[in-house]
């Protein structure tokens, strides 16, 4: 494997990591600050992708459709929080898992009724459909756009959380919720905002993933498992942890798929090597999670 290919695989890993970060940031905020296990986080990812796909033909522009979809997803999150989740904060985690699982079923069926059971069409905008030449490496332009959006979101979240008053309350809420309530902060409003922010981020992830992946019912659950792995590795409630965990998972998964079959081919025949490599590559991130948890049981950057 030459250096150029290795660089490309590194870029692929980074890009997958950034995509996972967009999902994980919202999930870890909601989990860490509101102490709410939200299995329906993937649902907002799906809604973001479907809204973008539906709005592109109407608005005629991908960035406009994306912005509208993110906003609408955040508003939907606000509504869901007020209607369904607000009563669950004092209940135990099992009740939350049940209720948010119910939300998954509800929204999956709703999307199926509105958009039909067959996956729908969403391609990158024409300007980003091709490849870009990076020092002799032809890389898909839209994947670079995902990378840029992910980095922008990371910077935005860092500014929001480290430099603003809301961010201070979010940090305080993640560290000691009771104390924040005792100080007279309107926790209800804070929770609503955090949940809407999380949903908006999930919607953004869905909108950016839509042109690369199948826009279909159930797409949220496929990525949700990976997202949970990310936030468990990173430390629940920590944005920094989510970023580190996402990049780690993206790198390990991509490089595992790229390198393991080739590594096995050195010691066994091609058919067995590709089967063994594929099997081990699909386990790699779970092995990573087990190792991280064995060394740091609360994740890499625990918030509590």
């Amino acid at each position, binding site marked *: *494997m*030459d250096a150029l*290919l290795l660089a*490309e*695989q590194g870029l*692929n*890993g980074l*890009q*997958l990591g950034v*995509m996972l970060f967009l999902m994980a940031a919202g999930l870890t905020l909601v989990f860490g600050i509101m102490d709410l296990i939200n299995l329906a986080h993937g649902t907002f990812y799906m809604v973001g992708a479907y809204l973008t796909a539906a709005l592109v033909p109407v608005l005629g522009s991908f960035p406009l459709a994306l912005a509208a979809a993110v906003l609408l997803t955040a508003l939907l999150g606000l509504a869901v929080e007020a209607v369904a989740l607000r009563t669950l904060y004092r209940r135990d985690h099992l009740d939350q898992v049940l209720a948010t699982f119910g939300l998954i079923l509800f929204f*999956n069926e709703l999307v*199926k009724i509105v958009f*039909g*059971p*067959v*996956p*729908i*069409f*969403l*391609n*990158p905008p024409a300007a980003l*459909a*091709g*490849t870009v030449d990076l020092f002799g490496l*032809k890389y*898909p*332009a*839209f*994947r670079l756009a995902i990378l840029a959006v992910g980095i922008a979101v990371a910077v935005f979240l860092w500014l929001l959380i480290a430099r603003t008053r809301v961010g201070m309350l979010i940090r305080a809420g993640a560290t000691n919720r009771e104390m924040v309530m005792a100080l007279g902060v309107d926790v209800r409003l804070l929770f609503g905002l955090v949940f809407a922010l999380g949903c908006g981020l999930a919607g953004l992830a869905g909108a950016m993933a839509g*042109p*690369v*992946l*199948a*826009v*279909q*019912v*159930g*797409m949220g*659950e*496929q*990525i949700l498992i990976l997202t949970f792995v990310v936030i468990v590795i990173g430390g629940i409630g920590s944005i920094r942890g989510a970023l580190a965990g996402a990049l780690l998972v993206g790198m390990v998964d*991509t*490089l595992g*798929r*790229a390198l393991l*079959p080739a590594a096995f081919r050195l010691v066994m025949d*091609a*058919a067995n090597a*590709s*089967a063994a490599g*594929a*099997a081990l*590559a*699909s386990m790699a991130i779970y092995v990573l999670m087990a190792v991280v948890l064995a060394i740091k049981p609360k994740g890499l950057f625990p918030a509590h």
Partner: protein
Amino acid sequence: MTRNLLTLASALALLATPVAADTLKIGMITTLSGPGAGLGIDIRDGFALAVEHAGGKLGGQDTQVIEADDQQKPDVAVGLANRMVERDRVQVVTGVVWSNLALAMLPTLAGGQTFFISPNAGPSQLAGAQCNPYFFNAAYQNDQIHEAVGKHVQDQGFKKVYLMAPNYPAGKDGLAGFKRYYKGDVAGEVYTQVGQLDYAAELAQLKAAAPDAVYVFYPGGMGINFIKQYEQAGLKGAVPLFGPGFSFDQDILAAVGESALGVKNSAQWSPDLDNAANRKFVADFKAKFGRIPSMYAAQGYDTALLIDTAVKAVGGDLKDKDKLRGALASAKLQSLRGEVAFNTNHYPIHNIYLREVVKAADGAVTNRTVATVFTNHADAYVKDCPMK
């Protein structure tokens, strides 16, 4: 005496009526939720359309279809199979999309003496050594579809082909089938995780291997992910892409649009096959469900036709399993793809066509038949099947 005869006659009539009035109960265990749902829903809808065309009476019997969602999970599918046998007491189970689920469900269904007619999954195991008196396949043996592209790619003179498939029984069958007729070099043979989303790593390896053609087997959502990413990586047009119909069928084409234009793929059916039954099916399916039928929808329809043909042949007698089995096995099925016969392993002997993804006059992206690759093609495993 006359009176006695009358009594006897009416008693016989009483005994006979329940047989004639037997309701045909069919268990439709298929994937109705999750990422694979598009396939299961098409099978269900195609099957329902055939029942409707038969006036609600397959084989002249009142027909009741009991739906259940297997969620693409083998354990759920086995539980449902058990329920269909024990509680619902169906005579036939159909609907299965995935080979691994079919393999898991068969022991339960065969043990319960319930016919299992697959509208899609056609694993090599059940065609060969593990063939079963209670298992039938109305669609194809997995390898057959792949063999057709293998032959086409070989005939076109490609010498260095890169192969990719998901890591599960049908994936391995698929690439084995392709290689049975393709004799050139294999530039790489890659198995990916079932349900994989991101193929960037594999596409980078593929590009580095510089093959002169690529053959992929990715059904459902995996196919959409792959085709989109293949084009975005700049490979479309640079390296010709081939696949079985599963990777380029209507469920996928609707989502990828022009990204798949020009790709040659193979199937036992195509929406443009020119016969009266097929024209009616395509038109009625579009009218009823508002979309172009996929090959899965056609297979659901053909499965219902097979049940219809066999139940008619036994005159509605659903009790005698041996007779019904004989009728299924000897059926000369007038299907949407012409006449189909069944081999000793209960798999079809039929034509396989080469299709091309084109843009129709109305702007819809769909498949068009280009050539007939195999005529009356039997599968490769029938010789290992002990049933004669």
